[in-house]
């Protein structure tokens, strides 16, 4: 039950309160470019959700086992090469490079897999897949997860296991989906409106995004309050669970 609550809170927080587009400003290029029709917007959002979840899993695994300071796989390799060494291997400088290639690879993988096994799905959002490699939502999600991957050496403020990383990534994608579909609905409506010429296209999209961001501010604090309401009554217990050591 506690776990479900925490999933719910993470979902609300990621998809609504700290929405990728309206709070973190990421994914703006497709947000402007692919939000003219509701169906294409939905396809784009679904594709992003799909890829971001997979990329998040891969990057969490890479970070935890290979890249983080003192990561087990790297350490094992190090011991093989130089037995008895006490140095802590830290490959975190390679983080960004690894992430971007993990994403590119995930996109390729997803594209091949979907084309082969789910042709209808491929038809509905396959065209968006190659575009996604440079979608900042994905890299941003990987970077956020990076901050929370538990590290042996230095304790992380809020360690996330693979499961939390996956949930976070999935709802980050859902947040993007919500934003882009809302925007597409509005822009379809605007198609025949007399928008001032200089504002047509990106200008009006930004202003609408601004108003949407204003509206989404209404969700602020919802996760905190919910957490307080749903938390089991004796507070020390929750402190224990929060203090659960990193896996």
């Amino acid at each position, binding site marked *: 039950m506690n776990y479900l609550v925490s999933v719910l809170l993470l979902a609300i927080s990621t998809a609504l309160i700290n929405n990728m587009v309206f709070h973190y400003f990421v994914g703006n290029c497709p947000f402007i470019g692919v939000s003219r029709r509701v169906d294409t917007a939905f396809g784009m959002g679904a594709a992003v959700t799909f890829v971001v979840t997979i990329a998040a899993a891969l990057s969490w695994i890479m970070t935890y086992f290979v890249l983080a300071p003192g990561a087990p796989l790297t350490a094992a390799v190090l011991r093989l090469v130089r037995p008895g060494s006490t140095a802590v291997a830290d490959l975190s400088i390679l983080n960004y490079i690894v992430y971007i290639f993990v994403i590119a690879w995930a996109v390729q993988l997803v594209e091949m897999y979907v084309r082969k096994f789910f042709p209808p799905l491929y038809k509905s959002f396959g065209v968006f897949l190659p575009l996604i490699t440079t979608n900042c939502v994905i890299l941003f999600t990987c970077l956020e997860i990076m901050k929370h991957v538990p590290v042996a050496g230095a304790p992380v403020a809020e360690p996330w296991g693979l499961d939390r990383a996956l949930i976070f990534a999935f709802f980050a994608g859902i947040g993007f989906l919500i934003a882009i579909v*809302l925007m597409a*609905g509005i822009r379809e409506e605007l198609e025949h409106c007399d*928008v001032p010429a200089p504002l047509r296209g990106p200008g*009006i999209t930004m202003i609408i995004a601004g108003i949407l961001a204003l509206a989404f*501010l*209404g*969700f*602020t604090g919802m996760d905190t*309050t919910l957490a307080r309401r749903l938390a089991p009554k004796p507070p020390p217990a929750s402190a224990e669970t929060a203090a659960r050591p990193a896996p």
Partner: protein
Amino acid sequence: MAENAVTPIAPAAPPPAAASARAAPAKPAPALSVAPGPHIASGALTTRRMMLDVILAALPLLAVSVYLFRQYAVFQIAISVIGALAAERFFGWMRRRPNTLGDLSAAVTGLILGLSLPASAPWYVGVIGAFAGIGFGKAVFGGLGQNIFNPAMVGRAFVMIAFPAALGASAYVAPTLGVDAVTQATPLTAFKMMGSVAALKPLFLGMTNGSIGETSALAALIGGAYLCWRGTAAWRIPAGGILALAILAGASDLTGGSPWTFAHHLSSGAFLFGAFFIATDPVSSPLTPKGQWIFGAGFGALVLLIRAFSGYPEGVMFSVLLMNSVAPLINRWTIPTPVGGPAPERK
């Protein structure tokens, strides 16, 4: 053809008025116009009349607000209305458009904005709110009838986020005012922050603190009833909103929720004012009856959610904006099937 011989008065040819008049100067032949049908129109309602209805319906709210907040209310509303009119004219001028003040829509925006501000807000809040509302909420979309969001709520959200101290919880305290009840925090804020529950009767009558126009549930009901009776407001929206809020809050009451019961929720804050005056703005709400139900219900549910769980004590403004943003999708998803089913595809 000897048409004139047969029908001396009927125009002989396609009738240019002047020519006929010259032909028979003594008894001018009628000038007939040609246009596609229908040739009669109801004329019972015009856009201008709809706007006037809103202003009329707001009179009870105005009366309560002037009673409660005295000259502060008058000042705030005047600032907002003048600001909105100036903004409408300014943006119209920027686009070289004819004067549109006559349709009264800008005045209504200003009025709703003024009613939704606290009496104690400084003067620039009303002006900036009006300009932001008309500018971001209306002019950039192309003017009347084309906006997606309720302009008054865009303006209010803008100033609320821009000047949290002027509109935030504490700012309602206006010690210079005469009536005791209005020198305290608003009932919703007091409940959210300190858990103190206000009595229902003053909540309903409006003898509490709050934004200028929101205090009295009774006045909002009277004005709202007038709007629905006139048909200016789609009754399904407030009905959906009230139902959703009452059901959700009632369910939480039954499960032993909070001392703030569904009756409190209904009569406190801007809920009824919003349900009748703001959410029903035709431009930014759905067109279809089914869509209006969904819109209303979504509005009510969001108000409750935001009140209960978000950091803000009141959720009417955010709910309206959020539902506005969904309205195009609702419209899209609730296109009714024509009687007799969709037209068959032509081969």
